[in-house]
């Protein structure tokens, strides 16, 4: 039997993705995001802290704040579907007979285009 894991299902564009509850810290209403020239991340003030923002799509009105290597990174442009427990596989989780891959936040941060200086 596959182990269960808690987390959040999201949608990026047309594709669904899974973010584990260890990585997903908090969901907040989307604040103003400032562009940072030369950086792949924008910046936003979340609960009194400056947090880097990775823009993964057009605004949905919410930010998903995640923890990546001890640092907080917020993801904008994700449609947040639901939280719950899911059957874990090495690639992601099963939901309603569909394999939902992990969001792979680290790869997204490294692959994000840099803002113009």
């Amino acid at each position: 039997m596959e182990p269960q894991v808690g987390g959040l299902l999201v949608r990026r564009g047309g594709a669904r993705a899974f973010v584990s509850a260890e990585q997903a810290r908090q969901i907040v209403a989307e604040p103003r995001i400032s562009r940072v020239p030369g950086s792949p991340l924008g910046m936003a003030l979340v609960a009194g802290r400056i947090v880097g923002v990775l823009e993964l799509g057009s605004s949905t009105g919410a930010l998903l704040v995640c923890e990546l290597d001890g640092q907080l990174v917020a993801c904008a442009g994700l449609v947040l579907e639901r939280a719950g427990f899911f059957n874990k596989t090495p690639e992601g989780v099963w939901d309603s007979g569909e394999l939902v891959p992990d969001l792979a936040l680290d790869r997204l941060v490294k692959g994000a285009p840099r803002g113009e200086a």
Partner: protein
Amino acid sequence: MSDAGVLALLSDLDETEQSRQKADKAVQALAQESARGRTLFDAVHDAARGQALRSRELKESARQLRDPLERARLTALNAGLEGARKGDPVGKALVVMAEELRVLLARALDALAEHSAALSDVDREREQWLEQLGAARDLTGALFEKSRELQVIEAGAARALERLGAGVRRTVGTDPERARLLLRAAEQARALDESLSSLKAGPEEPELAAILEPLAKKLGREGGG
């Protein structure tokens, strides 16, 4: 000018005057109706503008409803995430409750979105009506202006007819109304003469014919002028 010519001229004058009077009434009615139409258009326009204002208020209240519902949805997601972090079975109840709440809030948000879309549709339709109403109002205004122009033209026609009547009076040497009466009396006398003649010619009433014959002659002389 012959009697028949004068009679025809007077008859034409008479007919023209009657037509002018009818036209005058029609033009007045047109002016009144177009003015009434314009008032009605204005009332409908004002009512539609009032409804537009009400619609804006409804949209604003829908927006005010949407914001807290959206925040509550995020809170439900956060609660579910917290339950998921605690793991099964400790966080299970929280996850279930949060999911239930999230589904209800999502339905409320969908219903609100439909409500706002319906309001926008109504707004769009009303703007189209207002556009058409404006065009109809302009048309009624143009009709009103035309009726005013027709009234001026009709007044000119009345003056022209009056001058024509005066011309006829000078031409026939008498008042047109008097001449008309005389000519009509002559016509009637001729008709009576013909009737009396036919009576006189009848075989069964010789006595009556003898009485009527001098009368018919007298009338015929006077009527024929």
